[in-house]
């Protein structure tokens, strides 16, 4: 029985972790109620962390830190960065909403691209030669200080975004 309890606890921890991994900003009102609001402060062992500079759609630079091994999508979620619609499929390679654009030198250091990622990149809006999906990029010390630009937003065809679903 103790085993079951332990497993369940583990599973819950996992579920909790994932249930918040929803797009950074949601458009449906019913969904917003479930968002987590982390403070964004992560004081522990910041020396091991990797600094990432995001440039949002307004051109603003947002500098945050992430742990090695975290994906850029993890960083966006953990830091509660407000990029509309980012990471809709929670990093499961079913969409391309975590599309990010890099400088060429950084792009070269990002590691290999899988076929599945390329297939999804084909469907990304505003694709460039140095585009990748944020969910597939894992932080490492060699990427310290990297810049990741959030591409322009899709021309929105929605007409009444504020209506609750």
């Amino acid at each position: 029985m103790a085993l079951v309890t332990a497993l369940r606890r583990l599973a819950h921890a996992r579920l909790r972790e994932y249930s918040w991994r929803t797009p950074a900003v949601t458009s449906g009102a019913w969904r917003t109620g479930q968002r987590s609001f982390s403070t964004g402060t992560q004081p522990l062992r910041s020396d091991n962390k990797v600094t990432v500079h995001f440039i949002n759609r307004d051109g603003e630079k947002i500098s945050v830190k992430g742990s090695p091994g975290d994906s850029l999508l993890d960083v966006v979620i953990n830091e509660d960065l407000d990029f509309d619609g980012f990471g809709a499929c929670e990093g499961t390679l079913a969409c391309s909403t975590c599309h990010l654009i890099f400088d060429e030198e950084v792009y070269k250091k990002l590691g290999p691209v899988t076929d599945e990622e390329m297939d999804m990149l084909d469907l990304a809006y505003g694709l460039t030669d140095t585009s990748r999906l944020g969910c597939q990029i894992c932080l490492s010390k060699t990427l310290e200080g990297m810049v990741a630009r959030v591409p322009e937003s899709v021309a929105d065809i929605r007409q009444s975004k504020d209506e609750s679903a």
Partner: protein
Amino acid sequence: MAFLNHFRTAYLKSFQGDRLNKQLFFILRALHKSASSEALGISAAGEEAIPQKLITPADVGEKPRVKTLKEMPGPSTLSNFIEFFWRDGFSRIHEIQMEHRKKYGKIFKSRFGPQLVVSIADRDLVAQVLRAECMAPQRANMESWKEYRDMRGRSTGLISAEGEEWLKMRSVLRQLIMRPRDVAVFSDDVNKVVDDLIKRVCILRTQESDGATVLNMNDLFFKYAMEGVAAILYECRLGCLENDIPQETQDYIHALHLMFSSFKTTMYAGAIPKWLRPVIPKPWEEFCLSWDGLFKFSLIHVDKRLAEIKAQLERGEEVKGGLLTHMLITKEMSLEEIYANVTEMLLAGVDTTSFTLSWASYLLARHPHIQQKIFTEVTRTLGPGTVATADDVPRLPLIRGLVKETLRLFPVLPGNGRITQDDLVVGGYFIPKGTQLALCHYSTSLEEESFADALDFRPDRWIRKDSTDRVDNFGSIPFGYGIRSCIGRRIAELEMHLALIRLIQRFHIGVSPLTADVKAKTHGLLCPAAPIHLQFIEREN
């Protein structure tokens, strides 16, 4: 703690099973599309004049006036009625899509009784619609599915659920079966099923006078797909590819066939108003009967595994297992939700995969030069006799191209549905929230603009020169795109890749004199209109 770590590893390894969702999606879409075309409850209000304040174009500038639905072209209600109900247009939905695209353009409206459907037959407009999706896109009205579940006290699953309920289950399942690496671990399980498929081919061809022909390939691939999905989903084998298929598996196949063969009637099950059921009872009865059969089968297998787990725990043994074990232990979903989802995933994962495999082998047989090229790639890359796993697939771009090209020419879901959740402006038209859209994948797949020589079978059109080489686009998205795309996609791909690699390694696949040109027909899904018979001739090495 060591134990926990151990479990965690096992647990992470155990989540492989992606293809199911994707296929669910397919089915969903198929059902939705057809159902929606028919009678679901979108009110005619969509065509009413729209409030002036809403007609503000999103972008400022000299944009043309946004037109209303009233101004949208499309077939008249009467001609549509005759086309579909009199001339059985439902089996030609894919062709009608093409005709209407030519006649009315990229976006047009059709009316099926009270149901208005706006068809989007242009890759860029499809992209716009899918990119504007919110957190829980809706495919079509699933009331009849929901009604059955409520009646039997069953849960909805990924196909039939909507909104928050859907998102909760999707969030759990996508973490288990959507990532390619989580699905790659199923390679060995799938390969065991491929072993049996090959054996079956060898047995079946000895039954024909030429010693080479296998009749009705789809029947064989149906069993392969079912066995493959079950191996992942139920963590057990069903015996579909044995000489004597166990009775309970036969019962399930019967229920599945009933669901499929009565597709049109079950579609009416949702379309026929409740008050008419006493007069026309058959559709609803068959609908319920086939669902009873499908659920019964899932319950048997899920309960069996649950009992095994309980027994193991009572004996103090470590519990190891795959997808189902994980779901049962973690209880991220209730038992009823598990029943519903495995039922829907199995339903969605069989015909979709088998039709695609049937078309792929048919196309290979009809194009021996292409088959030879793929054979060369496979043998050069793998060496003789090697059994490929998911890890080998990236080195076999033509195999991936084969599946993509097959699905482009024969998208198993010729169209998908969406019910708009916001007011949208698409192609210059104002489309009010709650409108049923049909995304015309069949017609966009065959657009010359997206795919040069679109009618030609060319798996190599999908090959990239390097990682920045982009290959095509929203024109062919057989698994859909985004948060409500097929959850079984990766599992389906794995099953198809591994089966095709092995068939190509072992046999030269040839056309049989018994099979001429096979056309497609729509029966919910896009399927071969006639049985496909093929020859399997042993390769020398």
